[in-house]
């Protein structure tokens, strides 16, 4: 008995049907018969386990899957699972067969068969899995596959989409509750079974069932509720029942399978499965009872209100499921027997009725009860199937449904609780409604005189086989209950069993008859009755409200995404300031620390520093108060220079040099960028932000507040950092001591080029990144100026190259004078020489590859500024930044990798002059040819190229006519 194989077979079938082999070469009837046969074989196979089970009670098989998460491929077959598995495969075989004649199109048929097989597999996996987490996996698979089945016609039918979505939403939500519940359950079981051994999860069902004190666990209430939520949603219990009617947009065979025999029973299975360890707790039983009874009454009442044939069946299913749930919830598992009988009976009559409904729908094109009637002659088989099944549903004596109803009434009568009377009343009322629904099915659909001529679609005679067999079951099994069903149920339930077709004219029998007559009575006054009671609220309305509310919440959330980057920054910075204050970090920091200096003496250099700081802050303030951008740029330049001098005073000449050069470069960049932005655009902003806004508004104060907060936070932070440096030593001491080993006087240079060379390598990578990004951005839509510029026109829709906004570019030469021109001619060679000197002698003083690159870049930018793009380009044929940057990066990379092959490690230090024996020779020039020198050269080249790219991209003259052509051409 390979349970895994049994579970896998339907999935295999689905895969086979999905394979091109089956799709192309297997005809529709063949597919049908094959599937049906497979299900029958599985049925037989499962049935063959029965004798074994009768002897041993259960079969458990297990394979490892994810032991660390507690999921194993465990399978468990006992009477309960067997019962469900038989229903799944047995009814499945008939429905597969029926489906073969339901679809006209081969493609649709194939697709349906695939999903139905997969669904059958998932369902089998639910009832056969021996691990609650594996069961959950299967449970979710039923949700997914049923989603596909309900939404089968989704491509054309909006209702099908909506129904499928609703089903997935409700059962999915329940499943999320369920998974938490199951995880908690398995943790709890682990704690109970192996309190000492540190086993986290016991998710295998056979073990969980041994955890008899589960109901006393501290988490019980929580996980019981969560598990019940999962079950209630799946089994469409009140108030989650509303998804089931919506799911009726599935093709009828699917509805018949899902909603009579299988999916909705998964919840029932779950309750029954866990019942042995849960039933001792009051919460569990009373919840099941209450919800079950309410669902029963509501479902059966709504059923008779339906105008849609499948809707009627759906709600009556809801009602029946409620009854079964209530039965499982009866104290001491006393209702299990009745529940199982009900499950079997319901499976037979309800799937038959669904199939009848599908046939009618297929034949007449409608399912509206109003429009049907007089079908008795046209569909004789269906008529008799309906009569038998509906009467079984109504509980007519000697049919299978009667046995079920009898056992139910019996169980309810023996149930003693404070509110027994009320429960009994609910049972009787709902049974009357069910009987009424049954009469409606027979009369309104088949006997009532037809209204008008209808289209009628001829059907294959084989389509009646499935329904007929099911009706036969309802008819005969009542009589065969003793030999056939009782043994099966005896295996399934923990209680001794007794089941009678007719137990004599006892109170149960009389009650059954009364119900039948009551139902008949109600049937006659149905028109009035239906208008009598209406529910003010329905689950569906709540669901809709809920979705609307969610959507409202979503929209509200999206409003925070306002599109204003300033607000984003305000929120972010405000939050950080709030966190710093709220978390008390600042106050704890300041507590007990020396904040203010005790020593107030200053040296002359300190005074110089103070002046520089003052200059920095003053220029910073100036950038705030000036309106014009160029003034801000000038002020910003002052900040940069002042900080550079501060670096110098702080004995950081290397940094100071870089700072001075970079600030100059940055200022130049700002200026040429400003020159690229139309004056009109800038003036408009200045005007709208300053001139038209005299009064300082709230936003200004808010910004000011946040700036002050951040400023104060940083002030405190840096003050503490400065005042209380705890360790006056660092790894830099090692660098100071060892810089000599790399033949460098400048320790900073040694760190940059050797000790932390990779940082520098990456840093030029960052720089290259910026250059490439800027080049691509600025060069889009131009004639390619370099091999790194895009060769294609930009996206047609972007308007940046519209003639309207392209600035007018003039010949630059009119802007310069012979004096500036001559000086710029002189400065470039000097700058290059300085650059070379900085690279070669950078090891002994400030300056390194980076400064060299910036130096040359600055001089080149001077050429572009003074001479204009065309002339500068013409005069510098060798200056091809896109080649230079590549050369630099290549050298840097090779230089970085080469040491790996001589055992020095990536970015390792190599003394090439030593190795080549030219140490003294180059030494006479005051040089050392080392890998760091080559690296510096590479940096210089890369940075020069990168700056060249940036400057060239910005300086490129935009040609108006070309742009116009390009922007109208939708290429």
């Amino acid at each position, binding site marked *: 008995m390979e349970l895994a194989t049994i579970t896998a077979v339907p999935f295999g079938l689905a895969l086979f049907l999905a394979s091109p082999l089956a799709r192309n070469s297997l005809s529709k009837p063949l597919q049908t018969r094959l599937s049906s046969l497979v299900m029958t074989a599985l049925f037989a196979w499962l049935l063959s386990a029965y004798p074994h089970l009768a002897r041993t009670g259960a079969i458990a098989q297990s394979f490892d899957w*994810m032991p*660390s998460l507690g999921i194993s491929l465990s399978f468990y077959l006992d009477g309960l699972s067997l019962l469900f598995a038989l229903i799944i495969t047995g009814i499945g075989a008939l429905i597969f067969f029926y489906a073969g004649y339901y679809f006209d199109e081969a493609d649709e048929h194939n697709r349906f068969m695939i999903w139905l097989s997969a669904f059958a597999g998932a369902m089998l996996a639910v009832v056969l899995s021996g691990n609650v987490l594996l069961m959950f*996996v299967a449970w979710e698979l039923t*949700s997914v596959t049923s*989603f596909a089945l309900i939404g089968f016609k989704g*491509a054309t039918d909006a209702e099908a989409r909506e129904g499928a*979505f609703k089903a*997935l939403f409700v059962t*999915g*939500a329940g499943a999320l*509750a369920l*998974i*938490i519940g199951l*995880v908690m359950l398995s*943790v709890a079981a682990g704690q109970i079974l192996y309190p000492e051994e540190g086993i*986290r999860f016991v998710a295998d069902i056979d073990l969980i069932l041994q955890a008899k004190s589960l109901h006393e666990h501290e988490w019980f209430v929580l996980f019981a509720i969560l598990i019940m939520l999962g079950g209630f949603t799946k089994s469409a219990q009140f108030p989650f029942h509303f998804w089931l009617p919506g799911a009726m947009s599935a093709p009828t065979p699917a509805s018949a399978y899902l909603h009579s025999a299988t999916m909705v029973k998964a919840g029932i299975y779950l309750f029954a499965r866990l019942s042995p360890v849960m039933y001792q707790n009051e919460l569990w039983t009373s919840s099941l009872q209450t919800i079950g009874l309410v669902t029963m009454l509501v479902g059966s009442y709504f059923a008779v209100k339906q105008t849609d044939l499948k809707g009627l069946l759906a709600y009556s299913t809801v009602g029946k499921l409620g009854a079964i749930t209530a039965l499982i919830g009866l104290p001491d598992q006393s209702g299990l027997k009745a529940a199982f009988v009900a499950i079997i009976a319901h499976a037979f009559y309800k799937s038959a009725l669904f199939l009848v409904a599908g046939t009618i729908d297929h034949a007449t094109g409608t399912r509206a009860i109003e429009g049907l009637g007089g079908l008795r002659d046209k569909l004789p088989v269906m008529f008799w199937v309906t009569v038998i099944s509906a009467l079984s549903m109504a509980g007519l004596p000697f049919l299978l449904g009667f046995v079920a109803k009898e056992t139910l009434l019996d169980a309810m009568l023996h149930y003693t609780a404070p509110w027994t009377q009320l429960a009994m009343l609910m049972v009787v009322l709902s049974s009357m409604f069910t009987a009424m629904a049954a009469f409606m099915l027979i009369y309104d659909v088949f006997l009532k005189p037809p209204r008008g001529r209808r289209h009628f679609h001829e059907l294959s005679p084989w389509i009646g086989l499935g329904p007929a067999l099911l009706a036969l079951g309802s008819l005969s099994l009542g009589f065969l209950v003793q030999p056939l069903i009782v043994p099966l149920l005896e295996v399934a339930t923990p209680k001794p069993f007794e089941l009678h077709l007719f137990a004599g004219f006892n109170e149960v029998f009389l009650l059954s008859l009364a119900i039948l007559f009551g139902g008949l009575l109600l049937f006659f006054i149905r028109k009035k009755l239906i208008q009598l009671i209406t529910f003010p609220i329905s689950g569906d309305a709540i669901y809709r409200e809920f979705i609307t509310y969610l*959507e409202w919440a*979503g929209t509200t*959330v999206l409003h925070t995404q306002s599109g204003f*980057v300033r607000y984003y920054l305000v*929120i*972010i910075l405000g939050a*950080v300031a709030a966190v*710093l204050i709220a*978390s008390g*970090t600042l106050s*704890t*920091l300041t507590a007990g620390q020396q904040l203010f200096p005790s020593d107030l003496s200053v040296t002359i250099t300190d005074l110089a520093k103070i002046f520089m700081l003052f200059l920095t802050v003053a220029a910073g303030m100036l950038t705030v108060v000036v309106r014009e951008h160029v003034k801000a740029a000038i002020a910003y330049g002052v900040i940069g220079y002042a900080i550079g001098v501060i670096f110098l005073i702080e004995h950081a000449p290397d940094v100071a040099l870089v700072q001075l050069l970079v600030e100059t470069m940055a200022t130049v960049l700002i200026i040429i960028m400003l020159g690229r932005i139309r004056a009109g655009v800038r003036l408009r902003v200045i005007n709208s932000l300053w001139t038209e806004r005299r009064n300082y508004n709230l936003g200004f104060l808010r910004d000011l507040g946040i700036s002050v907060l951040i400023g104060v936070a*940083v002030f405190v*932070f840096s003050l503490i*950092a400065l005042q209380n440096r*705890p360790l006056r030593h*660092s790894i830099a001491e090692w660098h100071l001591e060892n810089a000599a080993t790399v033949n460098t006087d400048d320790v900073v240079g040694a760190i940059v080029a*050797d*000790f*932390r060379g*990779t*940082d520098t390598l990456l840093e030029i*990578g*960052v720089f*290259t*990144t*910026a250059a*490439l*990004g800027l*080049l*691509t951005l600025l060069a*889009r839509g131009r004639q390619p100026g370099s*091999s790194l*510029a*895009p060769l294609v026109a930009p*996206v047609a829709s*972007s308007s940046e190259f519209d003639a309207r906004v392209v600035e007018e570019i003039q010949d630059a030469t009119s802007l310069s004078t012979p004096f500036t021109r001559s000086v710029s001619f002189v400065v470039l060679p000097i700058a290059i020489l300085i650059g070379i000197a900085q690279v070669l002698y950078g090891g002994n003083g400030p300056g390194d590859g980076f400064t060299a690159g910036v130096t040359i870049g600055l001089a080149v930018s001077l050429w572009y500024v003074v001479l204009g793009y065309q002339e500068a380009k013409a005069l510098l044929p060798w200056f091809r930044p896109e080649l230079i940057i*590549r050369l630099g*990066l290549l050298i840097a990379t090779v230089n970085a990798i080469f040491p*790996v092959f001589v055992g*020095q*490690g*990536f970015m*390792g230090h190599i003394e090439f002059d030593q190795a080549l024996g030219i140490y003294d020779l180059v030494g006479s020039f005051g040089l050392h040819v080392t890998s760091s020198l080559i690296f510096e050269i590479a940096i210089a080249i890369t940075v020069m190229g990168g700056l060249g790219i940036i400057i060239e991209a910005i300086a490129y003259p935009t040609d108006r006519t070309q742009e116009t052509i390009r922007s109208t051409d939708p290429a």
Partner: protein
Amino acid sequence: MENNHLLLGALVTPLIGAIVALVFARSNRAQRSIGVLAGLIAWVFSTALLVQVHSSGIQTYALGNWRPPYGIVLVADTFGALFAFMVTSIMIGGLVYTFHSRDKCMTYPAFMPLFLLMEVGLIGAMLTGDLFTLFVFMELMVLASVSLTAISDDQYGLEAALKYILISSMGTLFLLLGIAAMYATFGTLNMAEIAQTLLTGERPFLAPASAIMLLCAFLLKSAVFPFHFWQPDFHTTAPTPISAMLSSIVVKVGVYGIIRLVTLLFIEEAPLLERWLSTLGIIGIVFGSLGALRTYNAKRMLAYSTFAQIGFILVGIGWGERLALIGAIVYAFNHAFIKSSLLMLVGVVSSYTTTKTANFADISGIGRKLPSAVGWLVLIGGLSLAGMPPLNGFISKLALIQGGVDRGDWQNLIIMVAAGILTVIYMIRAWQRIFQQNPLPDTAGAKNEGDSLFAPFLLVCVCLLLGTVLAEPLIQLIIETVRQLGDPRVYISAVNLPM
């Protein structure tokens, strides 16, 4: 201590690839081939590295043979190696996607080098043992992604890039402030050495403030509430393969940093940080899920979804228990595969529209005109995102729930799970809108061909494998990772600091 060349190889291959791709800027085909090749080699290196780290412990590489803490050291513990492996794996998907994409921007000579430099930044950030180098790697990644988004075919890419570079600078500032304070406090940049000092119980008073600074920087990189505003714009407008990388692995750099912070450096401050993480995570979950429900664009929906999913991971970290951390890492790992495949799939869908947009108004019903495989893959991906078995999203969910149950934080657990249903709603709705609904009148023109499905197909397959046969090995690996993270002494001793 031996230098491990696999470690170097994983990092350096994409760098070399970027340079070589730059050299071959004239030929777009050559660039793409170089990119894929470099990605593959890096993947092989990182896989081998992961195997080696798994079998013989933490591997290091002292760059330039300058011994730590004086030089820069690369460190691959299981955590770093695992994340680097994740990065290289997803990157292959992204690189392969560029191969048959019709986006204009992918023909730009700078595209592939920038893409590979972004990979360098990503891998480097996860393998470096040096605080400042971490900053440089992160900047490399940020600038590369900003550039790539700015040059996107999407005309709003520039706006997104502008916003991101402004907001991201805040993160850079926090990071630099934190690093400077750390250096001033500890006199070193080596994470192991800092951890060693902190382990001795010494608590320099700047430590908690630095921790918060660094935390803020990482939160910003991961786009956690309230640092998230840039994210939907940025992730949506980037070129498809980039947006797939951004939303899957780039956001994980922050996650990586946060986990390092609470497990290696600031173990004592961790409870304080974790309290914040849980709160922000929960807000993120709610915000992201609700936003995804109502936004107007499929890519944007996935971006909001990332916002929410990062929330899940943060709550996992915030629970501060071993099991929960396992859950968080499993979640982070799996999410990368799911989200990248989904974004690429949406990219494929939008590549069939004439305007290359993923606005629902334009792609509703377009699915009927696409190869049916697209619909299947999107459905599978969506279900995986929603945590349906047997896909890897389910594994993540289960692992995280187990962590939550272990921690017993019912309130957050239930909020999380309740928000999980929103994932189902928005994914299924989107799927139905694209693949089932009738086309809207304005969805007139669908093109006959679009981007290749191959890359997302590969990634979806991986999702399936990770949900089934590879799940257990992955979880075992992550359990080992968390065990290693639980004892910072292992990391410290592997770095082999001088006594």
